């Protein structure tokens, strides 16, 4: 792959170069690339992301390499953070609040919820910050901008993978067999990360002009967590309240992931269908919004 690829792609998305011409040594026989102002709606052109997969993986590797640099405990934080959160939840909601937990040890119950929440929230945070964090790249080098938010999902995937190993270990020592439900885990994860990415795309594009988003997100995300059945179960809420809580599209996905990881709890498929539809719409709109804003990123970042 090469720098040229950006230019060929650029022409692809503008659709203004003569295809089928041979790439001859003589410049006069080469297709002419013409860059014009983009008007109207930008096309999604997801093919670009595939064509730039080298850069995508390089950025992902860089993310993973850079994480926990200059920390004493290093990668142990990947395990520590959800364990710590689950510990506090089981103390507050389990031991003190005596919330129901579908018959599971509260720690296990909260850890499963936290795994799902982490996948969603980390995707949202990282993709939301990616443009500002890479502003030097955005303003100096051409590449499809969608690569940046997409590249952030890999380190979150790695975190989830490590968390999953801990989860399986916890299941084993508690003697809990989730059964076949565990096979659906990747689907819940996919939905949670897609929702996080969709919202993150909005956040990233907005942050370019409004750095306010950087201050709002860290406040909003923990608040959202308490509005989501991460540390408690939807079944613990009074039925009327449960309906309102389930209007939060993250809720059925977290409950679904927990059902997959533990084999306990009941799923309301209506809620799940709503959450999945919501996720697809947000992801699509997020990409459309991002693509339509990106032409100005280098000007204002």
């Amino acid at each position, binding site marked *: 792959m090469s720098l*040229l*690829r*950006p230019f060929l792609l650029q022409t692809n998305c503008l659709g203004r170069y003569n295809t089928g011409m041979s*790439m001859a040594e003589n410049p006069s026989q080469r297709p002419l690339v013409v860059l014009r*102002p983009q008007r109207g709606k930008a096309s999604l052109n997801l093919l670009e992301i595939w064509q730039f997969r080298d*850069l995508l993986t*390089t950025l992902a590797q860089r993310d993973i390499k850079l994480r926990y640099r200059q920390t004493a405990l290093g990668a142990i934080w990947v395990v520590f953070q959800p364990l710590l959160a689950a510990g506090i939840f089981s103390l507050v909601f389990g031991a003190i609040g005596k919330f129901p937990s579908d018959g599971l040890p509260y720690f296990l119950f909260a850890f499963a919820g936290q795994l799902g929440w982490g996948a969603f929230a980390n995707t949202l945070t990282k993709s939301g910050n990616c443009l500002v964090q890479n502003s030097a790249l955005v303003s100096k080098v051409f590449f499809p901008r969608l690569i940046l938010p997409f590249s952030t999902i890999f380190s979150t995937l790695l975190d989830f993978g490590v968390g999953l190993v801990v989860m399986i270990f916890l299941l084993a020592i508690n003697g809990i067999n989730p059964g076949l439900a565990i096979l659906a885990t990747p689907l819940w994860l996919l939905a949670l990360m897609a929702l996080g990415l969709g919202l993150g795309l909005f956040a990233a594009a907005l942050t370019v002009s409004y750095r306010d988003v950087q201050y709002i997100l860290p406040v909003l995300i923990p608040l959202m967590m308490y509005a989501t059945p991460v540390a408690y179960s939807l079944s613990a809420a009074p039925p009327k309240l449960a309906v309102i809580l389930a209007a939060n599209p993250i809720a059925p996905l977290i409950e679904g992931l927990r059902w997959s990881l533990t084999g306990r709890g009941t799923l309301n498929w209506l809620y799940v269908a709503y959450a999945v539809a919501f996720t697809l719409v947000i992801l699509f709109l997020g990409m459309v919004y991002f693509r339509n804003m990106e*032409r100005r990123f280098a000007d204002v970042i």
Partner: protein
Amino acid sequence: MSAPDSPPAMAARNVVKKFTVGGSGYAGLKGRIGAALKRATQEKKIVVALDNLSLTIEPGETVALLGRNGSGKSTLLSLFANVMKPDSGEIAFPASIDPLHPRLSPLLEVGAGFHPDLTGIQNVYFNGAILGITRKEMEAREESILEFADFERPEYLNAPVRTYSSGMFIRLGFAVAIHTDPEIILVDESMAVGDEAFQQKCFAKMDEFHAEGRTIVFVSHDMNIVRRLATRAIWLSDAQIAADGEPDQVIRDYHKAFGIPD
């Protein structure tokens, strides 16, 4: 150098580029709320960076862009590099020969892709990927890149880039960028950095690129560099071309306009 019917290496036709100052910056939301409260329309200042600019650069030319800070030189390079889009008009250039041959090396800012916490070597590969070179190709070029960068203290290659001096940073960034085998080289005020020996090496490389028939467009405030390298100089002033021609003549006009003795 090239056939008479060959298209220009780079052409700008009636390019207009405007920036909004203040209106959509970080103060945007606050400004908008404030304006809404005051029932006043928000004050937006439009700055025209390039005003109906047309320019043709032939293959093999080494073009120096002159002008005061803010005269639109970097904006023009950003448009050539496809980092920014024109507000109207168009930029045109022939597509690359083959996909493994980068057509254009955006040396807009040397080491722009360097991450402060990655080591020099890691950044070489990372920057390569950004500029469109695969890991395998970079491996083949690594030795040559490090030779060009020629660190006084090679142990720094495995240290994070944030510990580098600005000179070391430029050396490594420049070395990576020139190893992307570009047809058109865009350089934004980076050659003046680095020690004398390194500068000479950069000049030699530019001469080599020129001899190979590659097109170079660079921005510089150092008239000695302009005289040394350029075959043509373009003076940008007030978003338009004030002068275009022989470097010596353009430099004289430029100096006269600002009362600087030659």
